[in-house]
């Protein structure tokens, strides 16, 4: 509307301007007309002047008339134009009025619209407020929505969980069912009336009855003692639970299975008892094991009981756990006063010695053991007691408990006897020496006196007595030596001597003992040794006399001498009865003798080799025998006469430096 108004005004202005222009033009033309009149007057004047020029001027005039007509025509057009424009102007003015009226109307309308706008604005403000309210409500609604979404999500999760739970419940149910079925123990549920409501495969197996037959029947029907079975489940109903209730299930085929029942009631949600769930454990094997264990235990107890040595079993704290019969008998005590006591408290604390404490207290930490721990307990005014203790760690496998086994032996009497025996040997040999000395001297006196006479019989008798006395002397000396060895008092006096010279000397003197045998020396040691010459001589003599004694049908004895880097080596070889391989070590034991084939022993006490071995040992040497009974001593040696034994011994020789030092001294 405003735009329209504007364009009208513009049009008006333009019309006005046009009008003004046309006025100006009219004035201009009027002025020009004046000028033209002047010009005409001038030209009239001129016409006269220009008569001649009149034609030209006429032409001119003509022309100008034409022009003038043209101009007049133009003027007419311009006037028409002007009239038209005036008309137009009027039209425009009218239009303007209309436009003004219209504008007015429009202004009025505008005001109306403004008023309406204010109202509209108020309305808008109100609406804005409403809008804000709505926005706030919207926020709340959003929150509510979010909450509801969350609730929904939660519900969904819960639903899902419920689903999962329901699934797992299903699985669990399946799982527990398979567990129940997989169990090798017979499982059963029993109703309040004692009827079987459910069983597993194991129950079917142990009874031999199919599931369908078992369910609905009396639980007690399947036991050797139905009454006891009934009492059992009644107890469960009464107490809620029963454990290790012993029953025996009877199989359809008669097989019995010893079981231990564990049972408990099961209830519904409201806590109402629905029935009993009972699980049986097959203890047949356990019972067998128990029986075996009882047998083993009784076996062990039997051994302990029959043992003659007192024995204690101590716990970790060294308290007596138990003792055997021998212990109570030996120490005249009762189990009551012994069990639970510290080992040191026993025997009025007489056993509380540092030695025993040390030995016992390291058994368990060091997992060690001790044997033959000899402790002498001195009892003032009474004497002393010698005890041997053996201790070792013992693990009771069932509980894994560490125990100590302490065995003891009172060897007081044994010691006294041993000492008495040793001193008897010493005394006896000593006492024997005196009469031997007397006889020997008197025989020698007699031999001296009768050598000059021609009484050969008497001389011969005396010579025999003399020989026997020599033998007796040797036996007595040997016996004394044995007692010395036993008492660990066998001492030697060591000096350096030429070994080959000694061997030669011995062989020469031993040759006198047998006319039947030829004793041959083979080889040389070319060495000196540091030792007891008399004792080493005895080893030689013992071995050579043995060789003579044990080869009664042979005629040769070979004494071979050699040496290696460290030792002198002697071999004394006979061609006699030989020694079986299982006896070759025993012959060096005290009082051991090798018999011949018809079981007859050779004369002697069987102490020669024992003493020889002791002498060689004192010289840090070695003695042994190589022999095979009834077999040739050398392979491929078919001559039976060459069977026999070779006794060998070696003794460390002097080192070259020591030998030189000895020679210089």
């Amino acid at each position, binding site marked *: 509307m405003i735009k329209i108004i504007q364009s009208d005004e513009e049009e008006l202005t333009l019309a006005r301007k046009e009008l003004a222009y046309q006025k100006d033009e009219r004035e201009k033309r009027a002025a020009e007309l004046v000028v033209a009149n002047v010009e005409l007057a001038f030209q009239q004047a001129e016409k006269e002047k220009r008569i001649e020029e009149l034609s030209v001027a006429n032409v001119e005039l003509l022309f100008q008339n034409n022009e003038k007509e043209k101009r007049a025509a133009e003027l007419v057009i311009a006037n028409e134009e002007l009239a038209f424009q005036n008309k137009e102007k009027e039209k425009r003015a009218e239009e303007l009025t209309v436009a003004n009226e219209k504008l007015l109307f429009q202004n009025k309308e505008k005001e109306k619209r403004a008023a309406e706008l204010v109202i509209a604005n108020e309305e808008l403000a109100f609406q804005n407020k409403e809008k804000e309210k709505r926005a706030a409500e919207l926020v709340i609604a959003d929150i509510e929505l979010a909450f509801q979404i969350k609730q929904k999500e939660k519900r969904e999760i819960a639903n899902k969980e419920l689903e999962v739970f329901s699934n797992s419940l299903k699985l669990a149910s399946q799982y527990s069912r398979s567990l129940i079925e997989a169990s090798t123990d017979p499982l059963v549920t029993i109703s309040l009336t004692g009827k079987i409501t459910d069983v597993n495969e194991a129950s079917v197996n142990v009874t031999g009855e199919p599931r369908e037959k078992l369910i609905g029947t009396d639980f007690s029907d399947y036991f050797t003692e139905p009454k006891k079975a009934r009492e059992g489940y009644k107890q469960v109903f009464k107490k809620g639970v029963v454990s290790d209730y012993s029953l025996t299930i009877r199989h359809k085929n008669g097989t019995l299975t010893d079981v231990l029942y564990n049972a408990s009631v099961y209830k519904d949600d409201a806590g109402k008892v629905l029935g009993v769930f009972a699980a049986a454990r097959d203890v047949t094997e356990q019972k067998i094991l128990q029986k075996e264990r009882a047998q083993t235990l009784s076996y062990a107890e039997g051994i302990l009981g029959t043992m003659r040595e007192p024995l204690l079993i101590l716990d970790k704290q060294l308290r007596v756990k138990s003792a055997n019969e021998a212990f109570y008998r030996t120490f005249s005590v009762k189990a009551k006063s012994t069990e639970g006591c510290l080992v040191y408290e026993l025997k009025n604390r007489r056993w509380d010695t540092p030695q025993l404490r040390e030995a016992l207290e390291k058994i368990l930490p060091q997992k060690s053991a001790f044997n033959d721990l000899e402790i002498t307990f001195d009892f003032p005014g009474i004497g002393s007691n010698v005890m041997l203790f053996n201790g070792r760690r013992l693990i009771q496998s069932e509980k894994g408990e560490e125990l100590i086994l302490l065995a003891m032996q009172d060897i007081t009497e044994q010691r006294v006897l041993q000492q008495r025996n040793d001193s008897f040997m010493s005394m006896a040999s*000593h006492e024997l020496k005196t*009469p031997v*000395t007397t006889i*020997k*001297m*008197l025989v020698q006196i007699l031999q001296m006196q009768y050598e000059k006479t021609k009484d050969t019989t008497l001389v011969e008798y005396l010579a025999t007595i003399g020989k026997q006395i020599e033998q007796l002397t040797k036996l*007595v000396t040997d016996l004394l030596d044995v007692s010395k060895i036993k008492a660990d008092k066998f001492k030697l006096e060591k000096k350096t001597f030429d070994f080959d010279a000694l061997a030669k000397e011995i062989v020469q003197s031993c040759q006198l003992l047998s006319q039947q045998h030829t004793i041959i020396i083979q080889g040389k040691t070319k060495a000196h040794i540091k030792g007891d010459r008399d004792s080493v001589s005895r080893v030689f003599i013992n071995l050579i006399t043995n060789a003579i004694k044990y080869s009664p049908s042979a005629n040769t004895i070979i004494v071979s001498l050699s040496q290696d880097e460290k030792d002198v080596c002697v071999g004394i070889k006979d061609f006699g009865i030989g020694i079986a391989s299982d006896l070759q070590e025993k012959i060096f034991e005290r009082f051991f003798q090798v018999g011949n084939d018809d079981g007859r022993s050779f004369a002697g006490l069987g102490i020669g080799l024992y003493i020889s071995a002791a002498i060689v040992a004192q010289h840090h040497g070695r003695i042994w025998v190589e022999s095979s009974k009834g077999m040739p001593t050398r392979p491929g040696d078919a001559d039976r006469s060459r069977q026999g034994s070779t006794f060998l011994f070696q003794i460390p020789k002097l080192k070259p430096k020591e030998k030189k030092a000895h020679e210089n001294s």
Partner: protein
Amino acid sequence: MKTPNMAPKKILIIDDNEGILFAVKKALELKGYEAHTSETFMGVIAVANVAPDLLYLDVSLVGKDGREVAQELKGNDKTKHIPIVMFTAYPNASELAKEAGADGFLSKPFELELLWKMTEKYTSTSEKD
């Protein structure tokens, strides 16, 4: 030893075994010694009274240890010059004899020759005194 113009050497033998006493006495008499014997030790005075040139003394005597006898004799001025040779059947004869203050020892059973050598050795020493 029996030598011309000289009294025979006097030997006293104390041993609780009469066999030894007899044999040793006979053996020494064979060589011309004057042998006296006693089964028991009668005391220092008794020995001093016999005044032997040599005393053979057994280690074990009835009721008394030969070593104590030797010590007693060697501790007394009247008898300490008398050489003592001990008879012993124990293995550590030399130690026992030395401990007791004896001059020598003879291990039982001994050779006749050794008895004669020993006797000669100690009686000739006493001769020099």
